[in-house]
C-alpha cells in the first residue's frame, strides 16, 4: 500500500471532522473520496498533506510516517495536493507558476546562483522544457506568458494540475478537479488523470462530486459521512451500498434510487 491511514482523528471544537478513519490507497490506483458536503473530505486531504495536524492517528506514505509533518516536507516526499478553489499565483506568469514547482533547483538556495551558475542554468533549462511539456498536456501553452490571475476558473484548475505534476509526484491528491471546468474539458482532464496512472505511474486520490466521473474513472471508492468512513470498495459495490444511499439522500429515498446510484444533492 502506498498510503496507509490509521485511526485518523481531528476535532474542531466539539465536532469531529475526521473520526477514527482508517483506509489504504493502493499504488497505481485511482481512488475516489466521496461524501455529502461537510463530510470532512477536505479535512482528510488537509491532514494527509500536512496542512493540518491530526489529533490522533497515523499516516504512512511509502512506509514513512507523515502525520504532523510540515506541508512542504510532505510535498517533497512525493505526495502533492491541489485545492478545491485553485491557488494559482495570480501576479506571476503561468509559466512561472509551473517553474516554481520544480524540485532540485539549486538556484533556490540563496547565493548558489553565483557559486554554480552553470548547474543552475542547466537545471533551469530542464525544468523549462518540462513546464512547456506540461502546458502542452493541459493545452495552455498559448497563455504561458499571461498572468495566471487573468485566467478563467477552469483554466486555473488546469494550471494547478500541471503545477502539481511539475513536482514529479508519486501520488497526487486532487480536490474536486472537475468542479468549474468546462464540460468539454472534463473529458480531457479525465484522460489526463487516467494517463497519469497508466503511463506515469502516479497514484491518484481524488475528491469528486460528479458521480459519473467517480464511477467511470476510479478503481476504488471511499465514502465518508460526518467525519466517519461509511463504505470502502469498488465502485459497483458502493453504488448499491445502503449506507451510502442513505447518507446522500436520507432514508426515505433509499428504495427509488438504488438502481442508479447516489448523486450529489445540495445539502447543508
Amino acid at each position, binding site marked *: 500500500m502506498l498510503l496507509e491511514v490509521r485511526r485518523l482523528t481531528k476535532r474542531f471544537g466539539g465536532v469531529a471532522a475526521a473520526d477514527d478513519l482508517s483506509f489504504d490507497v493502493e499504488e497505481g490506483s485511482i481512488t475516489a473520496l466521496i461524501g455529502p458536503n461537510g463530510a470532512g473530505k477536505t479535512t482528510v486531504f*488537509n491532514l494527509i498533506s500536512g496542512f493540518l495536524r491530526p489529533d490522533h492517528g497515523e499516516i504512512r506514505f511509502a512506509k514513512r510516517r507523515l502525520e504532523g509533518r510540515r506541508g512542504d516536507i510532505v510535498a517533497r516526499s512525493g505526495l502533492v495536493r491541489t485545492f478545491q478553489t485553485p491557488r494559482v499565483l495570480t501576479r506571476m506568469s503561468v509559466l512561472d507558476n509551473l517553474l516554481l514547482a520544480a524540485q532540485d533547483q539549486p538556484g533556490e538556495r540563496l547565493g548558489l546562483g553565483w557559486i554554480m551558475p552553470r548547474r543552475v542554468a542547466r537545471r533551469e533549462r530542464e525544468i523549462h522544457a518540462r513546464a512547456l511539456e506540461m502546458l502542452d498536456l493541459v493545452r495552455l501553452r498559448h497563455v504561458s506568458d499571461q498572468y495566471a490571475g487573468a485566467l478563467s476558473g477552469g483554466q486555473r484548475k488546469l494550471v494547478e494540475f500541471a503545477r502539481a505534476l511539475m513536482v514529479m509526484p508519486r501520488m497526487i491528491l486532487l480536490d474536486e478537479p472537475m468542479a468549474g471546468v468546462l464540460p468539454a474539458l472534463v473529458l480531457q482532464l479525465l484522460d489526463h488523470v487516467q494517463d497519469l496512472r497508466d503511463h506515469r505511474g502516479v497514484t491518484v486520490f481524488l475528491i469528486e462530486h460528479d458521480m459519473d466521473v467517480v464511477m467511470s474513472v476510479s478503481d476504488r471508492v471511499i465514502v465518508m459521512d460526518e467525519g466517519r468512513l461509511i463504505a470502502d470498495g469498488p465502485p459497483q459495490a458502493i453504488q448499491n451500498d445502503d449506507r451510502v444511499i442513505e447518507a446522500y439522500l436520507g432514508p426515505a429515498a433509499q428504495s427509488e434510487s438504488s438502481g442508479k446510484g447516489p448523486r450529489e444533492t445540495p445539502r447543508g
Partner: protein
Amino acid sequence: MTQFAELVVTGLVTGAVLALAGVGASLVFGIQRIPNFAHGEYLTFAAYLAFLLNVPFGQNLVAATAGAIAGTALLAIGIHFVVLRPLRGRGLVAMSLVTAGLALMLRDVVFLVAGTQVRQYAIDQTKVFALGFLRISPGEAVAIPIATVVLPAVALLLARTPMGKSMRAVADNRDLAAISGIDVERVGVHVWLLAGALAGLGGVMLAVVEGTFDPNLGFQVLFLIFTTVVLGGIGNAYGALVAGLVLGVAMDLATWNGFFGGLDAQYKPVLAFCVLIVLLLVRPQGLFGRATVL
C-alpha cells in the same frame, strides 16, 4: 506591603488605559482587519481636545472628557468613511501603511496646532489622597472610579446588547456572521464609534495619570496597546480587557522591591516587549485565544 498595594493601584490605572484602548483596537483588528497604527494618535487627539475644552475654554474636566470622547468617536468614524472604507479589501499591509500615514498626519497636526510644549489639565497635581493606608495621586483618584465603572460597562455592552453580540460575532468569523444575517457594514461603523469613544476616554485618562503630556503621548503607548491586543488574542474583546489590566499591573509590579529587588522603572516597556516576543513564540493566539485553522 504598602509599596506593593500602591503599585497594584498604579498598575491597574495604566492597565485600565491599555484595556480601553486595547478593546477598541482589538475589535477593529478583528472586524475590519486593520492593525490601526493611528490608535495611539486617537488617544493624543482626545487628550488635546479635552485640554482645549478644559484650559482655554475653562470647562471642568468631566465636561471636557465627555467632549473628547464624542470628538474622538467622530474622528474615528470620519476616518473610516473618508479613508479606510474606500480602501477595503486592499490587504493588511496596505491598511497598515495607510493607518501609519494617518498617524503621522494626526500627530503632526497636533504638533503644528498645539506646539511642542508640555501641557497639563487644570487640576491640582500636587494633592495626595489617602485611601486607607494607600496614598494616591489626584490622577489616579479620577481614573480609578472611571475605570471601575467603564470597564464592566464595556464588558456588559459586549455581552448583552445586540450590537455588542454582533461585534463579537463578526470579529470571530466575518463570513459566518454575514451569513447569519448580521449587517456587517453597520457593525463596522459601530465598532469605530466604540473604539473612538474608548480611545477618547483612554486618552484623557492617560494624560491625567501622566500629569503632563506632549503630542507624543499616544504614540508612546501604541506598542503597549498592540501588545495588549496580541496578549488578549486578536479580535477577542474580553481578552483585551483582561490583557490590558494584566499588562499594566505586571509592568508596575516588576518594579516592586520584593520582585528580585525590583526592576528599574525605566525598563517597564522592555518587559512588555519581552512579553510580546515570548508570547509570539509560545502562544501567538493570545492568552485566551483558540488556535486557528490554516
